[in-house]
C-alpha cells in the first residue's frame, strides 16, 4: 500500500489531464514568500501540510493567506508541526478558488463483487464516512466493459449536474478511471471535487497505489511516507515488520497465524509491540536477519511462533540459532519458541542444541512469553 501525499497524487492527476488548482510544493517559508511574490501562486492562496492523515483542516494543518507575508507566516506555522505522528516537512501552496459546490468522487475495490467501485456523492468536502448511505452512489464498474457513458450519466444525476459542468465531470471520470487502472491504484479519491465556474477542479487528491504492482511502476517503489525507520529497513530486506504500541516481539509466519498469535498474547495480558511475519522462506539467513532486526526494536521478550509449511521448521531453527550468537549482550532478550509442522523434529533438535526449548502448545507458550515480558525467566 503506497499512500501518496496530496502533491504526489496531484502529479498523477496532472499527467492524466485532471483539472487542478495552480500549485507548488514548498519546503520553507522563504519559498512560500517568493512564489507568492512572483505571482507563480496567485493570491489568495491555501497552504496545506503534506501529511497522510486526514482532518488537516480541523487540525490547523491548512491555512489561508492573502499576501506573500501571510503565506510565509502560514508556512512557518505549519512546517515542523507534528500531525498524527507525522512531522510536516512539505507544504502545498495553491491558489484559492471561488468554490460554488463541493462534491465527492472515488474509485476503489469492491472485494465481494470483485469489481472496481465508483463512489459519488453530492456531499463533498466532509469525511465520506460521515455521509449518509442514501446520499452515496456506489457503482461497480466491470473491467471488461470499462466505465460506460450510462454509468457516467448516473454519476452526473447523483451529483445534480448538467450542462458544461456535467461535461467537465464526464471527462474527469474517464481520466480518473484511466488513472485507477493504469496506475494500479487501490484508491483514488477526490474530496472535495469543487465546482468552480462552469467546470470542476480536484481540490484534494488521495491516491493509494497497490504495493504488489510496483513491479510495473518502479517510480512508486521509493515512496514510503507511512513507514517507521525500522519498518523501512525490514521492507528493504523483504520482511513484513510492523511496529505497535506494546513491548513483546512476535515472530511468526503468515498473516493469519501472526494475528492469532497477537490475539492470544493479548488475551493473557501481554502487549505486542512489534511483529514480524517471515512469510514463506527457506533461507536461514533471512530468518537470522529478521531476528536481528527484531533485536533492534528492543522487545521485552520475543515469542517465536512458527508453523512450518513452505517455511520449514529446520530452516527457522537454523536461522535462529545463527542469530542468537550474533545478538550483542546489551540487546539480548528472553525468547519463547514454538515450532511446529514440516520438519518439526529437526527444528526442535537444532534449537535444543542452541539451548532453546520449543514448546508444543500455543496456549502455554503464549503464557510463557507474557510472563517473560514481565520479567520472569522463560
Amino acid at each position, binding site marked *: 500500500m503506497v499512500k501518496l501525499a496530496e502533491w504526489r497524487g496531484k502529479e498523477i492527476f496532472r499527467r492524466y489531464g485532471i483539472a487542478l488548482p495552480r500549485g507548488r510544493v514548498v519546503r520553507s517559508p522563504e519559498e512560500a514568500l517568493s512564489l507568492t511574490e512572483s505571482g507563480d501562486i496567485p493570491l489568495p492562496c491555501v497552504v496545506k501540510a503534506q501529511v497522510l492523515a486526514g482532518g488537516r483542516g480541523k487540525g490547523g494543518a491548512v491555512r489561508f493567506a492573502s499576501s506573500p507575508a501571510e503565506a510565509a507566516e502560514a508556512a512557518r506555522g505549519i512546517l515542523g508541526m507534528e500531525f498524527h505522528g507525522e512531522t510536516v516537512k512539505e507544504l502545498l501552496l495553491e491558489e484559492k478558488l471561488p468554490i460554488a459546490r463541493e462534491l465527492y468522487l472515488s474509485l476503489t475495490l469492491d472485494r465481494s463483487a*470483485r469489481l472496481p467501485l465508483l463512489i459519488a456523492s453530492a456531499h463533498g468536502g466532509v469525511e465520506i464516512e460521515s455521509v449518509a448511505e442514501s446520499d452515496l452512489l456506489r457503482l461497480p464498474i466491470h473491467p471488461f466493459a470499462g466505465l460506460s457513458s450510462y454509468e457516467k450519466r448516473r454519476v452526473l444525476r447523483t451529483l445534480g449536474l448538467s450542462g458544461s459542468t456535467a461535461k467537465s465531470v464526464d471527462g474527469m471520470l474517464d481520466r480518473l478511471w484511466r488513472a485507477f487502472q493504469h496506475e494500479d491504484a487501490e484508491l483514488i479519491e477526490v474530496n472535495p471535487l469543487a465546482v468552480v465556474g462552469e467546470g470542476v477542479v480536484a481540490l484534494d487528491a488521495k491516491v493509494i497505489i497497490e504495493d504488489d504492482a510496483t513491479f510495473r511502476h518502479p517510480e512508486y517503489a521509493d515512496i514510503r511516507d507511512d513507514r517507521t525507520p525500522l519498518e523501512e529497513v525490514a521492507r528493504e530486506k523483504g520482511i513484513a515488520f510492523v511496529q505497535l504500541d506494546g513491548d513483546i516481539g512476535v515472530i511468526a509466519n503468515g498473516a493469519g497465524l501472526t494475528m492469532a498469535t497477537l490475539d492470544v498474547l493479548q488475551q493473557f495480558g501481554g502487549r505486542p509491540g512489534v511483529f514480524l511475519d517471515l512469510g514463506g522462506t*527457506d533461507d536461514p539467513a533471512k530468518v537470522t536477519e529478521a531476528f536481528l532486526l527484531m533485536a533492534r526494536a528492543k522487545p521485552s521478550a520475543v515469542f517465536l511462533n512458527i508453523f512450518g*509449511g513452505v517455511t520449514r521448521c529446520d530452516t527457522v531453527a537454523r536461522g535462529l540459532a545463527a542469530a542468537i550468537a550474533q545478538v550483542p549482550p546489551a540487546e539480548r532478550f528472553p525468547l519463547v519458541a514454538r515450532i511446529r*509442522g514440516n520438519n518439526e523434529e529437526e527444528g526442535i533438535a537444532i534449537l535444543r542444541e542452541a539451548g532453546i526449548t520449543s514448546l508444543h502448545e500455543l496456549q502455554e507458550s503464549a503464557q510463557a512469553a507474557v510472563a517473560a515480558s514481565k520479567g520472569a525467566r522463560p
Partner: protein
Amino acid sequence: MSVLVDGDTRVLVQGITGHQGTVHTVQMLKFGSKVVAGATPGKGGSVVEGVPVFDSVEEAVARTGANATCIFVPAPFAKDALLEAVDAGIRLAVIVTEHIPFHDMLVMFHYARMKGARIIGPNCPGIAAPGQAKVGIIPNVVFRPGRVGVISRSGTLTYEIVSGIKEIGLGQSTCIGLGGDPVVGTSFVDALPLFEEDPETDALVVVGEIGGSAEEEAAEYIRTHLSKPVVAYIAGHSAPPGKRMGHAGAIIARGRGTAQSKVSALEAAGAQVARFPYEIPSLVRDALAARHAK
C-alpha cells in the same frame, strides 16, 4: 466423495521447474495426488521428479489429460499462466503465487468465471482432500481422512487448526485455503455450498480474518442455507485499526470488517465461534457429537 478434487484429479504444475514448484510437486505426489504434467515455457521435454514438463499448457493437457493446475509462477507472469490454463480448458486453478496485483486478479477472475473455470487463491495454500488429492502446499503431516470440512482465508493458521483437529483424533473431508488477498477466486460463500452438498462432510470449520466482509457474507449464507454445524474463528481481534497486518486483505477500514462485526454475524448465524485457535478442535468434537445425537 470430496470437494472439488478427488482421485480423478490430474494435476498440472505451472512453474514446476522453479524451486517451490519442484518441492511441492514432491509433496503432492507423496500425498497421493496424480501430478501428471508440468509446464514451463522453454523447458518442454525435461522431467521433474518423474513428471513430464511441457512448453505450453495446451500441450500438457493434450498429452496428459491434466484437469487441474497448481500455479507457482512469479506474480508478474501469473495472469498469463492462468489465462493459458483456462484457455486450454482447465476448470480448476489453484494459484499459490503471492503479490499478484488485484487489477490483474480482476481480469483473471472474470475471465475464468466467463469460461466456467474456478480459481482458488491467489496467495493461498490450496486444497487438499486426505486420501484423494492435494493441489497446493498445505503440509501433508497435518491431515488425516475424516469428516470435517475446513475453509480458511489463512495459510499457516490453517495448518495450525487442521493439525489441532487431527491431534484430537478427528480428520478432514476437504480443506480449502482461500487465500487472503483482496480479490480471491473462491470466497467463503462460493465454498460453503460445496461442503453443504458433500455427503462426506459432517461439520465445517471456517477460519476468517479481519478486513473485508467475506465472513459477514459467509454468516448470511450459513444462516439461510447451511444445515451442517459450523465452528468459526476470526484472527485479528487485537489488530490496531488501519495497520496493515501482512495480507492486503487484513485492513480495518471504515468501521467495517472488524473482528467483532464478523464474530457477531457468525454467532447470529448459529456458528460456534472460538476465541482462540486452540479452542476449535473441542468445539468441532462437540458439534459432531450433537449432530450425531440428533
